[in-house]
Structure formats: structure tokens, C-alpha cells
């Protein structure tokens, strides 16, 4: 099960955080800070995994954004890379060649998409089409409310 997912920029600015385990705010901040520094200091030649406390950290950089997930010992780190990639694909489809700014200005949308891909830290939908359909339908629902 995924413990949490963080998105942050090359400058170390947090862009998205999704926690599937309960921690006090302070702890979350500490973990975030620690991981951002560790990952940013790693060289591009290095592999995408690190051992960190009792978790495995899987991260991958897409353009200016780092996607970082903490998974449990039994989880497949290569699959986690696929999950990250799937999420990026979904963002890309939704925003149309997504960039960091899209995620900054529409962070809530980025959360909504993630919530249609994962529930409770596990994959709930393996079809891209279904995820996007669900998001679109909910956006329509919102628009209709705006009109009334």
C-alpha cells in the first residue's frame, strides 16, 4: 500500500501531497522536508529507489516536477513507477500536455484525478478511459451547478 505521494518542483517547492497514513501535521512537514532534500541531492545517474526508514521511496522526475511515493516493503517498486507514469499520463490527457503551472493553478483538479486512480493507497482503476470519464462527468456536474 502506498503511504503517501508527494509532488515537488526542482526548487523544492511542494506542489501536491497525498497521505494515506495518518500523521500529525508536524511529522508530515518533517518527512516532506527530509525527502525533498534527499531526492534533490541525488544525481541523475542514480536509480529511482531509496530505502528510507521502513519504507521504500520511489521517485521519478518529469520535466521540472518530481513525483515521489513511499511504499511498503512488500510492494513492487517497478510497478510504483508505472503508477506514477499512469498518473502523469492522466494529468497530461486532462490538461493537454500538462506543465507545472497547470498543477499549481489547478491543484484541486490534480487531487481529483489522483483520487480516481487510487483509493486508500491502492489502485482502483486500471483503465485510463474510465478515470477520465469519471472526472469529466463530475466536472459536468459542477458546471451544471454553476449555471443554476
Amino acid at each position, binding site marked *: 500500500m502506498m503511504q503517501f505521494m508527494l509532488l515537488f518542483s526542482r526548487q523544492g517547492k511542494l*506542489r501536491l501531497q497525498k497521505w494515506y497514513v495518518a500523521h500529525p501535521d508536524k511529522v508530515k*512537514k518533517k518527512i516532506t522536508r527530509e525527502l525533498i532534500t534527499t531526492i534533490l541531492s541525488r544525481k541523475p545517474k542514480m536509480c529511482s529507489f531509496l530505502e528510507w526508514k521502513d519504507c521504500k521511496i520511489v521517485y521519478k522526475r518529469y520535466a521540472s516536477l518530481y513525483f515521489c511515493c513511499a511504499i511498503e516493503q512488500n510492494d513492487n517498486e*517497478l510497478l510504483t*513507477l508505472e503508477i506514477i507514469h499512469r498518473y502523469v499520463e492522466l494529468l497530461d490527457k486532462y490538461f493537454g500536455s500538462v506543465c507545472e503551472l497547470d498543477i499549481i493553478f489547478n*491543484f484541486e483538479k490534480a487531487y481529483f484525478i489522483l483520487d480516481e486512480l487510487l483509493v*486508500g493507497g491502492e489502485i482502483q482503476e*486500471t483503465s485510463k478511459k474510465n478515470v477520465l470519464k469519471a472526472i469529466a462527468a463530475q466536472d459536468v456536474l459542477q458546471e451544471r451547478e454553476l449555471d443554476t
Partner: protein
Amino acid sequence: MNASDHGFNPAFNMATIRQAINDTIERDFGALLKTVRIPTPTRLRDLIRQIRAARTAAEERAVVNRECAYIRGTFREEDSVWRCRNIAKLLYIHMLGYPAHFGQLECLKLTASPRFTDKRIGYLGAMLLLDERQDVHLLITNCLKNDLNSTTQFVVGLALCTLGAIASPEMARDLAGEVEKLMRSPNAYIRKKAALCAFRIIKRVPELMEIFLPATRSLLNEKNHGILIAGVTLITEMCEKSQDTLNHFKKIVPNLVRILKNLILAGYSPEHDVSGVSDPFLQVKILRLLRILGHNDPDASEAMNDILAQVATNTETSKNVGNTILYETVLSIMDIKSEGGLRVLAVNILGRFLLNSDKNIRYVALNTLLRTVHADISAVQRHRSTILECLKDPDVSIRRRAMELSFALINSQNIRAMSKELLIFLEKADAEFKAQCSSRMVHVAERYATSIRWRLDTLLSVLIAAGNYVRDDVVSSTIQLILNSPPEEQAYIGLRLWDSLHNITNSFEDKQPLLQVAVWTIGEYGDLVLSSERIEESELVELYQKLLWSTSVSTASKQYTLVSLAKLSTRINSKEEEARAKQIIEAFGTHLHIDLQQRGVEFSQLFRDYSHLRPALLEKMPKIQKSLPNGNDSNGIFDEHSNSIDLIEGDELESSGLMSLSGGGGSLKVGSDSNALLDLLGGGSDDPADGLGLVSPTNSIIPTATTNGKTPIPSSSNNQDLLDLLGGLDMPASTPPAAIPPLGGGIGLDLNSLNDNSIKAPGPQTTGVTSSSSFGGLDNLLNSNVTLPATTAATTIPTGLASPTSLINSSSTANSLFNDFSSINNNEEHAKTLTALDKNGLLVQLVAKNSGGCLQIVMTAVNNSLITLEQYLFQAAVPRSFTLQMLSPSGSTLAPGGTITQEMRVSSTAKATLRMRLRISYQCDGNPILEQTEVSGFPEEPTPLE
């Protein structure tokens, strides 16, 4: 001008004009709104822009604070129109790291709103802002309950998603019924989310598993991949939590196999395809569940053998996704009771992974091989060369794994080739690897060495390659190996060390361990080295001078060098060089460093008044036998430590024995030695920083005694004395009982010498050093300490050894100790006394004696303080291979001067070294005090004298 501008850059101007128009419209529109309605809050988009426009952190803080103040205001006014927008802004502010807890309740209000937009942001906020605080959670449980029963699927979806992310145990209990109902919903969108919610609920509260069981099974009959993957995840969790459920689900193995088969064999399905692989997410989940179901179950394993083989052979491996599935397959094959052929296939897949250009896949392969190496070492051996190749990987994590795996693969057949590669690795390795790698090299060299010469060469290479990063154990074990080698090997390695010492003359500072081993060897076996006639005596002395005068040689190394030079002076023939050596040594008599000064002074004596003793005193060290099981038995840190015998230390004792306790330097030295010993006793702190390790008394006492036997003069008895005292403190038990009688005599001698010393009248038994002028200061130093009557002073020394802080102890301590020693002397001839504790006036000793197949140990606690100690409780624990029987103690209150005794009997079921962990608790002045310590060195077998 304008016209020309237009002409030059019309596009620019068009943009400016459009911007200007937009700005005007927006401004006017805003103004219009202002006049008509209450001021609208900043839009989220604008706030983000403002924050991003902030040039400094302070500016950003100001923007955020202003906005937060505003948002708080609207919350207070219960403004429900803009609540959604305000919460969205607050969530952005929260992500920047600012406090946003004050929005928690507003989030809940949003979730209770009938509008979907409000709910969407409200639940998002709840997931981000809520912690597990009870009161808020109760409120949200109600909201969730309502929404779980909503008729809009997306509202139910939001509630399920929120529950999945933040379910606390209470929430899980309250909402499990609703979730179970939703698992039966006809709507696939809801069913898959409900199944994952159930997964989270069980994760938090395993007892709730029961209610979900009936609805779970049917999830696997679905076509929808979302439901399938959620179902497999849920079943996996259930099986991991309960063995009963695991057995219950064994029967679904055929279903899982069928689903997996369909995935592989079914043609291209665009919906679930990931670069040519059909739904890797689902495949991996199924493979993992199969692994759990097949673990330790031959029948289930049999049922999945074929499909695993199929997956392993049919998966496209050009992309990460294919390798993801193969990786999971390999894990499953290794974990179930699979066929031998399949296991070889699995290891070969990992072998192929090692050659992959993707570093992630290489990393995973090494990690997995490391996990499986013990199960299937021969299969992994086949990929040895690839693994060694990974030692050169640019990725540090891969190199680390490769190093660990390489060491795991070493055996007596491949040791030569492997160590060659590892030495190359060691040479270039990062600092963080060098210490670990060098220690492990020493370990494998010891374990698999084919010849002494090879081992010596390897150790030398390690010392050269790892420089200062080698741990102290490498130095001591190398020295020990050289000591125990035949003379021709000693000469060989001596020459090689000499050569390597020559090669590093410009970089001493980063090769100190090599330097130490080299000078030790050359000093010890100078005659052998010189007999090769390759080296001139003058060259040798020249080098020593260079080393000793160099600023880039550490103090510890200089200590080695000085001792070595003294030894060397008896191995060279040329009088001229001997005189030069003397000169160098004498120069240290005024050295600023107290230990070097002491050595300088002591050794100079050997060139003057006692020069006739010099050859005998500086004899070669005898070979030593390892008294403790070697590292392979892995008896823990404690043993490893007592195992690392520092021979220089032995040397030092021999030489400082000349001064023994009569010199100030001598007793200071003793203090620091006993520190090191105590450190070791106290569970082996690995801090023999100055290279002074432990003398294993069993090893050193006897050889020294023989050396002394040749020189029957007062100084030698002092020497013996010191050793005996050390023995008496540390592990008298490991000293055979025969060594105890001299101890009594030793005290007598000491008594004299100290007595003499403190009254400054050299008696017949002192070494005459007190008259040496360079020594006056030290004498004073000592005198200021030793202000006790002579009799006491002598007996204080053991106490000083036991706890260096209490050199000036109360006279009662000294007396009782003296009594103790004499009582041992008289009555307990075959027993060994171990001091377990000597602190704050409480002395706890163990007297161990072999009696009729078991070890009888009598604990004696003596209260030397002036305070009554109450509720004295002595507890002991022994390793599992021993049984301990404790008889009741003679009391629990220790009046000043009082004693408590308690008898224990230890019998062993296996041949092992007895260690005893002690816990001593008592009350001093009403304050509870707890001491813990570890004692070892008990007699193992009936001693040879019996």
C-alpha cells in the same frame, strides 16, 4: 514616434493594447461589483498569482497573512456563498506550509452542503486538513454516513474515497456496515471503491474482516478490471491478516490462474494495454496473491507452477512494465514451493536484469538476489561476473548492493578471483564503503584463505587500498596473523611492508593503519627483514627517524613506532645505528605528549643503567593462540572485541612494567588502560580510538611471565604485578588459578615501591627512576594523588584499576579489597574472582568455581560507603545454552561495611562461553539505583591444574 513604433513592432503593440483593454474592463467590472454587492473575495487564481509574484519570503508571508486574516473573517461571519472558494485558497496556503487547521470545521460544513462543488472541495479539504482528532472525526463520520447513502454515484464516490484515505479505527467501526452494503451495489464505480474501503477498514481494524468475507468472493467473478484489482487487493490483505482466511481462500487459486491466463493470452485490449502488456497492475496484484497462497503449500504451488512459467517466458521485456511483471513473478517463484527448473529460470531472469541498461532494474535484481542468495547459492553463483561488473556501476546504491552480494557469494573456490575484484573496488570505493569493505575482506580472507602468504598479501592490499578507513580490528588481526606466521612468511611480509612504507613516504597521514602494521612487523622481525640483505640498517633507522619526526604521523602510530624502534635496536648489529636509535628515543623523554614521553623515558633507561636487560626484555613476542571462538561463530560484538587482541598493548605492558607502578607515568597509563578494559567489559564500546585494544589476559600473562622469568630482578616482578592486577580486575577467571599466588606477592612488592616513592627514598626494590630529573614533575603529580598511608596506597591500585575515577578511594575500600584478595589467596585456590561492579562504594564480586559438572558462583556485595544501602537486589541472566539456578541471598540490606552473599549455580547444555548479564538494584538514601553490567571470563572447563 508612435507611428514608427507601430511600424517596427505591430505585434507587440497589439498585445499591449489588448492587455490595456482587458485591464480596464476587469477594473471597471470589479468596481461595478463593489458598488452593487459586498466585496467579492480574491479568486484562487489571483491569490496564487499574488503569492507567486512575491519576491521575498517576507513578502509572501505578508500576502498569506492578509489572506488568512480575511478568510478567518469570512468564517466568523458564516459566509456560505464564498466558503468553497475560501477553503480552496486555504488548501493552497496549507500546501505552502502555513497553518490551516482553522479551516477544519469549515470543510465539514462544505461536505454537508447539498452542492456537489462544495462537497468535492470539502472532502478534499477534509483529507488534507484533518488529523485523527476525535471530536472532528465524529462530525465527519456523520457526513460520510449520509453521503454513503446518497443516490448520486459521485457523491458516494467522494465519501468512499475520503473514508479510504483517513479512516480512523472508530470511523472504520462506525461505517463498516455501510461499506459492506456498497460492496454489493450494482454500480461498478461504487463497488470497486467500496472494496478498497473495506481493505483500508481491515487494515485499521482486522476484527472487522468477518463482515466483508461473504461479499468479497464474488468480486473475482467480475469482468471489470477495477473491481478485480480491488477484490484481489482486499483478499490479499485478508490473507495476510489471518491464517484462517488464508486457508479459506486457497480454493480461489484456479480462479486467479484463469484470470492471469486470460490476461496473457487475450489479444490486444486498448483499454488496459501498457506498452504491449495487458494490465500490468492487475497482473502484479494477482502474482502477489498467488505468492501468499502458495507459500509453504505444495498443492497450491503445484497449481500455479505452469502459469508462473508462462508469465516468466511470455512477458515482453523491452520496457519497464514487462520487467515489473517478471520481477513480481520471480519473487513468487522463489517464495512458493516451486519446481527446481522454475527457480533456475527465476534466477536467470534476475541475471538478465543485471545486464539491463535501466539502473532501476539492475538495482531490483541485486536486491532480490541478495534476498535469495541463501536459498539458491549455486544458481546465483552463475551470475557472479555480472554482479562483479555492477561494482563499477555509477549508481552508489547499486554498488552497495553489488558489494554485499559479492561478499555473500565468496567461497573457498572463488576467493582469489573475487577478492581481486573486491580489492580493485575497495581502492576506488567511496569513503563510506571502505571501512565496511575492508573489515569484510579481512573476515573472508580469514575464513577462506588458501595459504598464509595469500592471506598476508590480501591483508596488505586491504591496508594499502583502504588507508585510514580501515577499522582497528583490521590492524590487530593483521598483526596477529603475522605473529602466528612461520618465520619465512614473517620475513616476506616484513619486506613487503617495508616496500609499501617506502611507497607512501609522502602520504603517511592517510595510511596510518598500514604504517602501524609495518613498523610493528619491522620492529618485531627486524633481524629477519635485515637478513635478506636488501635493506641497510642505516636506511631503517633513517626511516624511523623520519616517521617519528613527521607531523603527519598520528600519536598512536608514533607509539607503535617508538616501541618498534626500541625493539629494533636489539636486532641491529651496527653500534653506530644503535646509538642513533638511542638518541632518537631519548629525544622523546621531553615530548609534550605524556604517553610518548613516558615511553621515551622508559626506553632510554634500557640504553643506560639497564642496558643488559634490553635484549631479553625486547624479545620477540611468542605466538598466541586464540582463546575465544573466532568471528565465524558470531557471538556478537562482545566476543568480537575480546577477540581482537592488540599486541602492541602487550608490548607496552612489558615495557612499562619496568616502571610499573612506581612511576607517575606508569600509574596514569594504568588508568587509561583500565579504561579501555572497562569499556570492553561494559559491552564493548568500539572506541579504542588510540589503537589500544584489549589484552586478552589469558594470552599475555603467560608469555610475559616467561619473559620475566629470564630477568629475575625487581622490575620484572613489578611487571608481573601489573599484569596480575590487570588480570585481577578484568577477568581473573581466565587466568589459571596458578597465577593467583604471585598476585599476593605482587602486592607486597608494590607496597614497597609505592611507599618508597611517596617518601622519595629509593629503596632496594625501586628501579631508580625516581632520581631521573625529567621525571620529577610526574612524581609530584603522583604524590599529589597518593596521599594515603603506604599500605593503603598499594591496595588502592586494584581499586583504581577497577574504576579509574576513584584512585583516591576511602581507606576502607582499600582495606576490604585487600582482605578480599587475601581471602582468595588463602581459601579459594581454585576459584576465580570477577569484579562485577565497583561504584559508589558498592563492590560486587563473583567468585566462580567448578564443582561437580556445574559452575558454582558466589556473589559477594560489600558496602564500602558510609550510607546504608537497602533493598539490594541482584539479578543475573545467562545465554540460552546455560541454565541458571539462584539461591536466596543472605540479606537485602547493606550496612556500611556490611556484606551480602548469594550463591548461583550454572550448568551448560552446550559448549559455549558463559557470559552473564547482571542487574543490580538498591536504594541509597531512598533513591533507587539500578546498575547493569556484563561479566564474562568464567572458567569454561575444569582448569588444567585440577
